[in-house]
């Protein structure tokens, strides 16, 4: 009964399989395969005969089996049909076999399940809703779990959600305090009988609503308490969870979009054409049938003597009816079955060209490009929109410390012998850090001057590096080999701290009260007096420390624009110098930070600190008061310099983006990253430029706001455009105006749209959708940040549906899978850790830059070739078949064939790629005496060719026909080049003229993009981490206890989680503990 009911809410009771069974929830087995052994044949055949061509030829085959009608032998149809169907079936079968295999592998993973008060190893597929599972570190989560308890204090546990949303940083989940008390006590866990009432299965990754009823009390559950299938447990030795959703109900599976059968526009065109041709065929058949009836009644009667027909046995109408079907069979070649096969073969060939391409081979990882789908090649030449992931696709997700400006001097530039700035090349010798045992081996710096300055003991340089080593939120750990490992919250900070470490200022460890660093070999412990955390408005962070000498210092780093306002007036000269440097850095697409410090005296600090404590204790306006105090102390700073960190783009991204946009392909970036980071990358890869007329940022919190913002942006855009229209631009665009009446096409100037995930969710609602789409399509660049995997797919769908455009999605992670699947063409970046994107993709290669070659070379050529092929194919079929139509008028419409269709079709079908040699050898064989001797009835062609080809007359006719067919084409092409030259004709003409004029000059080196834009404090930074550090909650027990006597905590230790949650409500509520940087 229950299975017919729509689930409104889910009720799960822990440790009670019988109770849960009556709801018939799905178990944890997953199926992605389509067939099993029994159902394969019927389902596959059914699917195949749904294709128009196959069904058509099945009908034809049936017709041919009727002897009265059949004018061709049946094997001319059945052989190619069977061939096509078996080939497809074999392909489907192998595909499904691999799906079965991967399903089995996943279903048979082991996990520890609490059954009958004992922990037992159980296969994943046997896990049921309501079971309690034990997870261990680095294990995949088997199902969507409610976290009950974990090894960490407060029931915390860390998960990596790379498979779900592509973010590689760790997220924290924490259990309810009531359940975290259960700990690892098996008997108590087995006795746990809480009932969870929650929402029905859905695909929202960041939302969960539910209530746990246990021991007469109710606890509300949210996303923080849930561990989703597909996550990996990290940094947590064990945890227990209760299964809420299993198998197909899990959010992971709900998010995996259905695999859709992708078809190209040529396919659709072909289908329509085939339908039209079929109609045409019917018309021909009717004309000929009528002709036959007339002929039979007028002339055919008299021929009965030769055929011994009895009078009245066949009326002329009936004969006409039979003739109709006969002609349908004879003329069937106008509707081409071999078209589908030939098209597939050609595409297969093109796929091989892609696989073979050395220019798309990534030699560093030995990864060639791969066409995983062979049916979409020509669509590559039709792409209008590209949806790209950022991390791992556009960028390498590696931050490197590139340059710095210390006290008005730039370090990190490489000068050659002539004192010219040069590009850093592999030949240049990097600074040798190997003497330092603690140095990070992957770090490279090419300017030896900095090293020299350090050795010279330049105090500013020392202070600069000391600041980098002190002012951050990095956590350090020593691994088993005794190497320092930094757990970084944002990769930028990691880059800075690592840089400091390589230059001899090594951050060793921290406690809530102290920071220990090694300064050029001597250990120094700084007392951490205050931690002025980062937030989005402050765009800076500071620490106040007491150094071993007892001086109190404030170290601050932050966005240059903000920090420069806080400087002491005496810094003016340095400021302008540093400012120039910053512009230079920003122009190269580097992420910049300004660095400053301030000396504080004890008395002033004590006063300030007391005020801070008061403010913290205050109940009213607490945040405002704290912010005011921060402002108060962060002033009169002394500028030290600036840093420039490179968010390393993949190779050749800028060139690729430029050439793709030259090809009028619009590139949208869909990323899970923060807005600042996304914008920064937009600038770095030339998608956003300073020349842009306007950059719209949409960040509304509800549907109304979002719509308002969108409309305003649109108005703004049209207004600007109107102003433009008065100018000279009109003349340039006039031609385009005449050609294209659509408003958005007439827009001049470049615009960009930046929208965050939260607004996007509202913008994707039905009535705002159109506003969004209209605006987005008018913009040259669109960047969506903080989007979920599903939203990515929704955006793609939106464009696909309403713009009728051909879309391409490119990404590298599991979070891009849905987008890759829903776009017309999905591309996976191979060679990364995860395989999901590649597995879901249609094409895969190792570098974003290969996209250029794939689209502009392979796609274009495929499309051209396919079009040419189609033209020739239809031409050939019509030419061949219409002969029979005309011959019908001479042979009394009796469905006699004028030419031997049998061998023609044979050749058409088997030797499609038909080399002339094979064609003729078959021809000669079939016309040979030998084969006639064996099958006199089946091959009566002997002598035809020999006789006709020896006649001079035939050759004269062939010659004349050739002349008559070729000359008009030559004339047409000649006149077309003269009268309506295409762009390529003009270019060719121009090239020719250039060649005549002078030898080609060598290409000038590309000039650097100059940009006044300075990247802001674009860290993937989140507020609240400072509190976590000062509270000490994330410090492991094995860390040495604080030695300092200052045993004060700034905040109530239990409240930090709530604080955290409160402050991050509008983002995906999790704090990140990003990648682990290895020493």
């Amino acid at each position: 009964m229950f299975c017919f009911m729509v689930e409104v809410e889910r009720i799960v009771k822990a440790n009670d399989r019988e109770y849960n069974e009556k709801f018939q929830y799905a178990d944890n087995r997953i199926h992605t395969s389509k067939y099993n052994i029994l159902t394969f044949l019927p389902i596959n055949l059914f699917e195949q005969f749904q294709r128009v061509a196959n069904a058509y030829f099945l009908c034809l085959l049936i017709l041919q089996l009727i002897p009265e009608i059949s004018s061709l032998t049946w094997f001319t149809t059945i052989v190619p049909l069977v061939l096509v169907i078996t080939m497809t079936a074999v392909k489907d079968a192998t595909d499904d076999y691999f799906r079965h295999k991967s399903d089995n592998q996943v279903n048979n993973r082991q996990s520890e399940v609490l059954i009958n008060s004992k922990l037992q190893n159980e296969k994943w597929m046997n896990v049921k809703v309501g079971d309690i599972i034990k997870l261990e570190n680095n294990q995949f989560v088997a199902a969507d779990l409610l976290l009950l308890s974990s090894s960490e204090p407060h029931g915390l546990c860390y998960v990596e959600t790379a498979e779900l949303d592509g973010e590689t940083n760790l997220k924290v989940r924490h259990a309810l305090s009531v359940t975290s008390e259960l700990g690892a006590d098996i008997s108590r866990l087995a006795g746990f009988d809480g009932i969870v009432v929650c929402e029905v299965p859905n695909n929202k990754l960041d939302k969960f609503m539910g209530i746990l009823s246990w021991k007469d009390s109710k606890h509300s559950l949210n996303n923080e308490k849930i561990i989703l299938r597909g996550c990996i447990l990290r940094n947590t030795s064990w945890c227990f969870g209760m299964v809420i959703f299993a198998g197909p109900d899990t959010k992971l599976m709900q998010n995996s979009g259905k695999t859709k059968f992708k078809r190209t526009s040529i396919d659709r065109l072909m289908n329509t054409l085939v339908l039209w041709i079929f109609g045409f065929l019917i018309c021909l058949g009717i004309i000929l049938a009528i002709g036959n009836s007339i002929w039979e009644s007028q002339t055919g009667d008299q021929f009965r003597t030769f055929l011994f027909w009895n009078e009245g046995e066949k009326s002329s109408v009936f004969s006409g009816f039979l003739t109709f079907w006969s002609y349908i069979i004879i003329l069937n070649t106008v509707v081409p079955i071999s078209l589908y096969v030939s098209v597939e073969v050609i595409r297969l060939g093109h796929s091989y060209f892609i696989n073979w391409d050395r220019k798309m081979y990534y030699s560093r990882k030995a990864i060639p490009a791969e066409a995983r789908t062979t049916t979409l090649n020509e669509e590559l030449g039709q792409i209008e929109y590209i949806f790209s992931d950022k991390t791992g696709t556009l960028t390498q997700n590696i931050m490197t410390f590139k340059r710095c400006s210390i006290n008005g001097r730039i370090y990190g530039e490489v000068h050659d012998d002539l004192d010219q700035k040069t590009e850093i090349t592999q030949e240049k010798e990097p600074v040798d850090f190997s003497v330092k045992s603690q140095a990070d081996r992957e770090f490279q710096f090419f300017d030896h001057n900095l090293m020299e300055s350090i050795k010279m003991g330049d105090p500013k340089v020392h202070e600069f590096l000391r600041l980098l080593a002190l002012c951050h939120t990095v956590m350090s750990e020593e691994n088993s080999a005794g190497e320092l490992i930094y757990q970084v919250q944002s990769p930028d900070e990691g880059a800075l701290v690592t840089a400091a470490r390589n230059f001899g200022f090594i951050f060793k460890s921290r406690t809530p009260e102290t920071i220990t660093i090694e300064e050029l070999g001597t250990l120094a412990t700084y007392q951490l007096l205050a931690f002025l955390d980062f937030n989005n408005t402050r765009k800076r962070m500071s620490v106040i420390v007491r150094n071993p000498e007892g001086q109190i210092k404030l170290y601050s780093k932050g966005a240059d624009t903000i920090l420069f306002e806080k400087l002491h007036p005496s810094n003016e000269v340095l400021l302008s110098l540093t400012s120039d440097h910053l512009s230079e850095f920003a122009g190269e697409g580097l992420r910049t930070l300004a660095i400053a410090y301030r000396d504080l005296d004890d008395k002033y600090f004590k006063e300030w600190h007391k005020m801070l404590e008061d403010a913290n204790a205050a109940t009213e306006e607490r945040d405002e008061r704290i912010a005011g105090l921060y402002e108060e102390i962060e002033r009169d700073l002394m500028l030290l310099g600036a840093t420039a960190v490179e968010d390393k783009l993949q190779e050749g991204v800028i060139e690729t983006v430029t050439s793709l946009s030259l090809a009028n392909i619009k590139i949208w970036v869909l990323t899970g990253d923060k807005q600042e980071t996304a914008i920064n990358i937009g600038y770095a890869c030339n998608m956003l430029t300073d020349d842009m007329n306007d950059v719209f940022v949409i960040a509304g919190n509800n549907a109304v706001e979002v719509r308002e913002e969108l409309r305003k942006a649109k108005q703004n855009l049209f207004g600007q455009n109107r102003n433009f229209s008065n100018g000279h631009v009109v003349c340039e665009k006039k031609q385009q105006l005449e050609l294209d009446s659509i408003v958005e096409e007439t827009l001049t100037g470049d615009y960009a749209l930046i929208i965050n995930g939260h607004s996007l969710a509202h913008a994707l609602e039905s009535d705002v959708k159109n506003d969004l789409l209209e605006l987005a399509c008018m913009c040259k660049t669109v960047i969506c940040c903080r989007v979920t995997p599903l939203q990515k797919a929704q955006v793609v769908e939106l464009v696909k549906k309403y713009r009728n455009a051909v879309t391409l999605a490119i990404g590298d992670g599991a979070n891009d899978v849905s987008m890759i699947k829903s776009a017309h063409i999905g591309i996976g970046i191979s060679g990364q850790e995860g395989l999901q994107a590649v597995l879901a993709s249609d094409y895969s290669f190792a570098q974003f830059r290969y996209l250029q070659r794939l689209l502009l070379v392979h796609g274009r050529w495929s499309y051209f070739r396919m079009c040419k092929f189609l033209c020739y194919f239809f031409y050939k079929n019509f030419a061949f078949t219409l002969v029979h139509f005309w011959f019908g008028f001479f042979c009394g419409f009796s469905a006699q064939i004028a030419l031997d269709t049998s061998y023609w079709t044979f050749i058409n079908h088997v030797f499609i790629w038909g080399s002339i040699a094979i064609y003729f050898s078959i021809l000669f064989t079939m016309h040979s005496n030998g084969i006639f001797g064996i099958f006199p009835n089946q091959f009566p062609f002997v002598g035809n060719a020999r006789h006709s080809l020896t006649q001079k007359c035939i050759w004269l006719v062939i010659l004349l026909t050739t002349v008559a067919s070729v000359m008009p084409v030559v004339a047409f092409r000649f006149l077309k080049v003269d009268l309506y030259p295409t762009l390529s004709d003009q270019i060719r003409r121009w090239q020719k003229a250039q060649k005549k004029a002078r030898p080609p000059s060598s290409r000038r080196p590309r000039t650097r993009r100059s940009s006044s834009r300075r990247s802001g404090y674009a860290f993937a930074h989140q507020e609240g981490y400072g509190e976590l550090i000062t509270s000490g909650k994330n410090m492991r027990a094995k860390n040495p206890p604080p030695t300092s006597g200052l045993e004060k905590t700034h905040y109530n230790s239990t409240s930090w989680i709530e604080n955290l949650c409160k402050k991050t409500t509008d983002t995906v509520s999790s704090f990140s503990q990003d990648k682990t940087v290895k020493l």
Partner: protein
Amino acid sequence: MEERPQHCLSRLLDNSALKQQELPIHRLYFTARRVLFVFFATGIFCLCMGIILILSARSTQEIEINYTRICANCAKLQENASNFDKECTCSIPFYLSGKMMGNVYMYYKLYGFYQNLYLYIRSRSNRQLVGKDVKAVEDCAPFKMSDNKTPIVPCGAIANSMFNDTIILSHNINSSVQIKVPMLKSRLTWWTDKYVKFQNLSSKNLADEFRGKIHTVAQYTTTKPPNWPKPIYDLDKKDPRNNGFLNDDFIVWMRAAAFPTFKKLYGRLNRTHHFIEGLPAGNYSFNITYNFPVTRFHGEKSVVLSTLTWCGGNSLFLGLAYTVTGAMTWLASFAMMAIHIMLKNKKMSFFHQ
């Protein structure tokens, strides 16, 4: 820079021009000089070819005499079912104004005879005709077996409807002296037909073979087609080798014509004695034994005498087609030249401004 050794790349991805899509191409660039040159040359060629073809076609001579109406009495006689096996001859005198030089060929020509009907064409047995199996008649409906269940040889509608008029050409030197013009009945067929597609049974004596006398078993007995007056082994009384399936007239008939109006080779002039240079001018007559009924399907038949040239018969079509094509090509080339020059001038003036 590349950590992987180079051989890996070369092993995986062949650096051949084909696989890298770097095969040399030649793109025709349609410069005015080339195109116009080609056009003029083609035009001249086509015109010359056309004139040659027309001249040579006109040099052939052809005489066609439609004898459907002239021999109408015979037709009428035979339409009466009771007289169908009565022999009827008619003589058609005609005057040859100029002599026909060289090889002269005699054809019969039928109008409105649909040898290309689907059912008609299918009704034959190549297995039987190649002399493999006399009983192979399964394709021959409706002429497979005679009433007494013996296979018809040759079976099928095509064979049954064979043209069986006898045409004899005589030269009337004067009113009393008539010379029969010697006609050859050999090499009328395609070589492959005579030596590959049609073979007699291996036996020496054809008549015995077809009558089934060698095999005493009754099933080897065969029957002649219902419309035939004579059995297959008795077609040419003068030349015993020209009998059975290898009879030239039979083979010629069995190669079905593509159109309802067709002519088939009946004989060629034996250039001996009086006729060593061809047919001299003078009075001739056709003596026709009228057997083949055409009035029943409103068809017509005629006899044709013709000479050939290197390019076939006297059809003007090919020559005209070449001439017209040549003329059109010239016209087109002039037009193109005009357009090109016009555009060029325009461009020049544009640049000079």
